[in-house]
Structure formats: structure tokens, C-alpha cells
């Protein structure tokens, strides 16, 4: 039995890699790739007549395999299937860190899942509130309701867009410049930031198109995403590189935090660093940069 530490609602989630929960060869050593989170999938990757087998496999993987620092999230089947309730029971009993709600369209969907999670925590003697939630938005309705979804529960840590289904609904296909999903990504990001949760981009499925993948990751970073869903370990390194702060950003953040502490101790609220105005509004961003830098192995200070 591997006791997993209590999940953290806010942690580094640059990369979230999908794994079929039904395939023992995949899930037994998923942690060695170094992604921040793994997403064990009970939904689309698992054939309809193997949903039960995937749960048994998932339960023992959660209980037996030491995933270490890697966060373990489980994607459950949609609320329109006969599977989701048992999926939730096994996730909670096995001690998964979080549950990804597939095809989420409203705050009510989140509440429905939350209620079942709470019942399962009670049934299996798991600390109430331990199991985190995230939502996958896969339809226009999900995107339009993004804010109420993000703000529906204190268990919610983030929201992700699912490109395949969404593009189908919008009658479009992946475009080089990302224009096919620009509005949806933007709306979801605004909703996530307004609700104070994290925001993740969809998978890039063409493994032979490294150039297209890199362009998309760079756009993700520029738009303000926290991370990206992945389907293959070879995609991890580039995302970690892109999402790592630059040397210049780290030095700047360090200066800002230091200067803020000195100035506020001296009773000064607004001041300049390298000619730029700094006040308290800049501090959370600078602290976030330093935490991210530490997680990426680029900084070893003790300011945060």
C-alpha cells in the first residue's frame, strides 16, 4: 500500500500525460517520464466492454505503484454513460489525487460529480474534500459556461479544453495558427483566471509534426496557459522548456520580491526597479515565477 500525500490544489502542472488505465504495460511505470501529472483514462481509451476491467486495473495501480511526486488524475466517463458513478467510487477508494470530469457543460455537472465524490469519501473513510476536481470542456456550451464551471466547487483546481470534440462541434479542423480554437481558448482562460483556477490546453495529436506541436506550445505559453495535455512522453521536454521562466525573468522576479520586502518594511508602497514602477500588484506574479523556476530546477533561493 502506497500512502499518497494529500493532493495540493495549486501545484505545478505544466504537463499532464494521458495513459490508458486498462493497459498495465503503460501505467506501471508512467512516473519515470517526469511529467507533472499523469491522467489515467477510463473514458475514450477504454473500450466499452472493458470499462470494468480498467477499474480493477486502476484500483491496484493506485494502491501498489509509487508514483512519487507525479500527480495522479483519473479521467472518468461522461455523466451520460452508465459508468461514471462506479468510476468515482474506484477513484476515491484508490486514493487518486483528482478526477477529470469529461464533457462538462455546466456548474450542475460539477455539483453532480462532487456529490458522488463526497458520498464515496464517506463510504471509503477518505478525508472529506481530499479528492480534487477538474473539468474538461468539450462543447460550445461548456465554453460558454466556463466561468460557472470553474467556480462551482472549492475542489476545482482547473479546466481544460478538449480539442477533438470541440472542433467537431464547431465544424472546423486544426489550423496552423490556432485560429480554429482561438476564441474558445481565450474565453476559457478568462473564465479560469476570473475564478482563480488553472487552465490547460488540449493535446496535439500528430506526433510526426514536431514543428506544429512546438508552435502550439509557444502560443499556449503566450496566451497564459498553465500547461498542456500530452499523449506521448516525447512531448514532455519541450513543454517543460517553454514553460520554464527565462534567466532574465528569474533575476527580475528575485529583485522585485527583495525590493518589495525592503521597501514595505520601510513603509514605502510604490517604488521602481530598473526604471519600472513596482507595487504590491507585481508580487504574486514574481513569486509565481520563482516557484516555477525552483520546480524547473533553475533557482535555489529561499525567498518563496
Amino acid at each position, binding site marked *: 500500500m502506497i500512502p499518497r500525500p494529500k493532493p495540493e490544489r495549486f501545484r505545478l502542472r505544466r504537463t499532464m500525460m494521458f495513459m490508458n488505465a486498462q493497459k498495465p*504495460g503503460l501505467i506501471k511505470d508512467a512516473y519515470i517520464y517526469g511529467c507533472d501529472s499523469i491522467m489515467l483514462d477510463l473514458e475514450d481509451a477504454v473500450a466499452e466492454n472493458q470499462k470494468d476491467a480498467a477499474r480493477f486495473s486502476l484500483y491496484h*495501480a493506485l494502491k501498489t505503484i509509487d508514483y512519487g511526486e507525479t500527480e495522479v488524475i483519473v479521467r472518468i466517463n461522461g455523466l451520460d454513460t452508465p459508468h461514471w458513478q*462506479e468510476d468515482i467510487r474506484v477513484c476515491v477508494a484508490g486514493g487518486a489525487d483528482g478526477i477529470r470530469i469529461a464533457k462538462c457543460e455546466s456548474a450542475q455537472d460539477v455539483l453532480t460529480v462532487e456529490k458522488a465524490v463526497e458520498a464515496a469519501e464517506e463510504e*471509503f473513510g477518505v478525508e472529506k474534500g481530499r479528492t480534487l476536481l477538474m473539468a474538461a470542456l468539450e462543447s460550445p456550451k461548456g465554453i460558454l459556461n466556463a466561468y460557472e464551471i470553474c467556480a462551482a466547487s472549492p475542489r476545482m483546481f482547473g479546466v481544460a479544453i478538449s480539442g477533438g470534440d470541440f472542433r467537431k462541434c464547431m465544424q472546423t479542423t486544426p489550423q496552423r495558427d490556432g485560429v480554429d480554437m482561438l476564441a474558445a481558448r481565450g474565453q476559457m482562460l478568462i473564465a479560469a483566471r476570473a475564478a482563480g483556477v488553472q487552465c490547460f490546453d488540449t493535446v496535439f495529436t500528430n506526433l510526426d509534426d514536431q514543428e506544429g506541436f512546438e508552435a502550439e506550445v509557444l502560443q499556449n505559453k503566450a496566451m497564459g496557459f498553465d500547461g498542456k495535455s500530452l499523449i506521448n512522453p516525447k512531448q514532455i521536454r519541450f513543454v517543460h522548456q517553454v514553460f520554464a521562466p527565462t534567466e532574465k525573468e528569474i533575476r527580475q522576479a528575485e529583485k522585485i520580491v527583495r525590493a518589495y520586502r525592503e521597501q514595505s518594511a520601510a513603509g514605502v508602497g510604490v517604488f521602481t526597479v530598473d526604471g519600472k514602477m513596482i507595487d504590491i500588484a507585481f508580487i504574486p506574479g514574481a513569486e509565481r515565477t520563482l516557484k516555477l523556476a525552483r520546480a524547473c530546477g533553475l533557482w535555489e533561493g529561499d525567498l518563496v
Partner: protein
Amino acid sequence: MEIKKPAIAGTLESSDAQVAVEPADSGIELYLESSVMNQYGRQIKATVLETLERLGVENARVTVVDKGALDCTIKARVECAVFRSCDASAANVPWGGAVR
């Protein structure tokens, strides 16, 4: 649990095991085939028998074709096959109880 009808779980992929259970009259008959028989045959047998005992299966013919599965995978496949044979694999599985 009583094995009511033949049932099967798992695949023949690497790191997996395929487990078939069938009704039998007296006791457990276990047939094991494994790609790592010499190294792990005894341990796999012990895991299968232990799992059956935990599920209260007293009479069954059990065939295991192992492709180098971890213990936790063997357990998962045996349990799934037994629950399937009782039509009990889809809901209200006793996670953490008989299944652990």
C-alpha cells in the same frame, strides 16, 4: 463467491495476463502458463490462489496465461474475471474490502 459461468479478463499483451475462470465441482484447478515461469511461476500461483481465497472462491477451474504481469495486474485480472462470472463487475464493487 460462486463461479456461475465462464468469464475471462485481461489480454495477451506484454506486462498483462489473461485469466479465465469456469465452474468446477470440487476445489481449485489452476493451470498456469507464463513467459517467466522459471523465475516467477511459484509467486504467480501464490498470488492467484491468495486472491481466489480472499474472494471466497472455493470451486473453479482457473487458467492463467501470464505475459510478465506485475502482481497487482494478476490480482486485478483474477478479480475482474471472478466478478464478471457473477455479473458483479460493473457496479458496487467492494473496493478496499474483498478487492484490495
